[in-house]
């Protein structure tokens, strides 16, 4: 009978949409009233930052490749912006590409350039940075880029031929680049650029992909920034405020809420099991 339902039974039969609404509210509150929870920098992020600081010299060329669309951007954008700003401070030249088929990836590149490079008149398009846009072929194309860049890209995303891009005088293949910063799940960068050509590879992607990348990180093949949390840490190291650090408020509250729900769910499950055992 419904009247004899305990609180545990009610929780067990709760409409999941109530939980979704609760999550929405928990995220919105710190967006309106930031809590300013502290963020500490982990060793993995410091390693990546220190590597870039030491390795990149003025006029070195860095490749930023997007293997993802807009969906994961709340997680990866803070790191992407912070990294671009760091490379700008180090006076590096930056090349953008994407192997992601959806239209969103080029929008992300445009957003990054709008918020960083295009705001600084010292950086001239074609000379200090260039957007080559989309390439197809996944791992095969990444391998080809390593051996002969012009076989994959004959012009930039806006149709300018390579010959009219001054930066292209110094780009032939993987050897021309000081590092690759890949935002996405493409392992081919490790295979062909790190292990094949010994170009350092840094990876940023969603938190849920960290377990996939951890073996490569443990093997010393990549530097890794996983998810929004580590992107926020990178923001702190670069020292330019961005969207990452404030996001840690709702991340912490969201985690606490899910943790509480998981604990309650397990308690209810154990209780039901014990009840069944005594019957």
């Amino acid at each position, binding site marked *: 009978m419904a009247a004899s339902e305990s609180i545990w039974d009610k929780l067990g039969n709760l409409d999941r*949409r109530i939980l*979704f*609404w609760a*999550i*929405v509210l928990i*995220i*919105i509150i710190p*967006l*309106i009233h930031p809590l300013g929870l502290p963020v500490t920098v982990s060793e993995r992020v410091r390693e990546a930052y220190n590597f870039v600081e030491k390795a990149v010299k003025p006029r070195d060329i860095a490749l930023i490749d997007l293997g993802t669309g807009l*969906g*994961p*951007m*709340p*997680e990866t954008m803070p790191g992407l912006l912070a990294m671009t700003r760091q490379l700008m401070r180090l006076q590096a030249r930056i090349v953008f590409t994407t192997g992601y*088929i*959806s*239209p969103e990836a080029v929008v992300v590149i445009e957003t990054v350039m709008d918020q960083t490079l295009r705001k600084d008149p010292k950086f001239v398009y074609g000379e200090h940075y260039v957007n080559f846009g*989309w*390439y*197809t072929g996944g*791992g*095969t194309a990444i*391998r080809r880029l390593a051996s002969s860049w012009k*076989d*994959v890209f*004959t*012009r930039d995303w806006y149709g300018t031929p390579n010959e009219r891009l001054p930066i292209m005088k110094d780009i032939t293949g993987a050897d021309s680049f000081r590092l690759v910063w890949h935002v996405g799940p493409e*392992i*081919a960068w*490790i*295979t*062909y650029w790190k*292990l*094949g050509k010994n170009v350092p590879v840094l990876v940023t992607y*969603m*938190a*849920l*992909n*960290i*377990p996939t990348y951890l*073996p*490569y990180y*443990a*093997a*010393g*093949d990549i530097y890794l920034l*996983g*998810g*929004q*949390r580590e992107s926020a840490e990178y923001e702190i190291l670069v020292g330019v405020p961005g*969207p990452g650090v404030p*996001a840690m408020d*709702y*991340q912490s509250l*969201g*985690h606490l809420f*899910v943790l509480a729900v998981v604990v309650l769910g397990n308690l209810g499950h154990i209780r039901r099991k014990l009840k069944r055992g005594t019957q």
Partner: protein
Amino acid sequence: MNIDPLVVIGVIWSLVILSFLLYKENIAYRFAEYTMIGVAAGHATVSAIYLINGSNITPLLRGNLLHIVPLFLGIMLLFKLKGEYAWLGRYGIALVVGVGTGDVVRSQMAASFIRQITSTLEIFTIRTAEQAFNVFVFMVAMLSTILIFIFTVRPVGAAAPLPKVQKLGRLFVMFVLGTIFAHQIMSRVAMLAGVLQRLVALFGF
């Protein structure tokens, strides 16, 4: 107040998509879903034409006749649409699959298999007590987890403790799954927050 109409459209679109989770499937959600698929398919087609033109047709017209091979194989793929000539498309696919497999076997063996084994062996260079403890936990976790997948040994005699070791292995697997679940939450919360952030900003917060 200066409001960007694109942001308004983005917020409305996001809310329509979220209505599936927060309310139930509805006609507005379906409209948004189909629009998204249509736009993505349209963009992919145009991008593909742009890319084929740049990397194949243009070099071919400039006299690089080698580009006729991929163009020919690509056209043959279109025969897949016509049942009786579908076999013609197999040549292009065979080449792609063959090259892909050969490439993956060679490269992934190096990156994901041999490199992982050598880096695992590197952990045995122990210098501190902390490293020794880590290696001990790592070895117990690795061996007990691998032993879960041994199904051909009866738990008798020397193999009698096998079920207990497998139980320990299951515990480690659950730790890993728990970690992956926590990372999933982080990703999903971040994605949802990205949408809500635009919503909150629209109302001036």
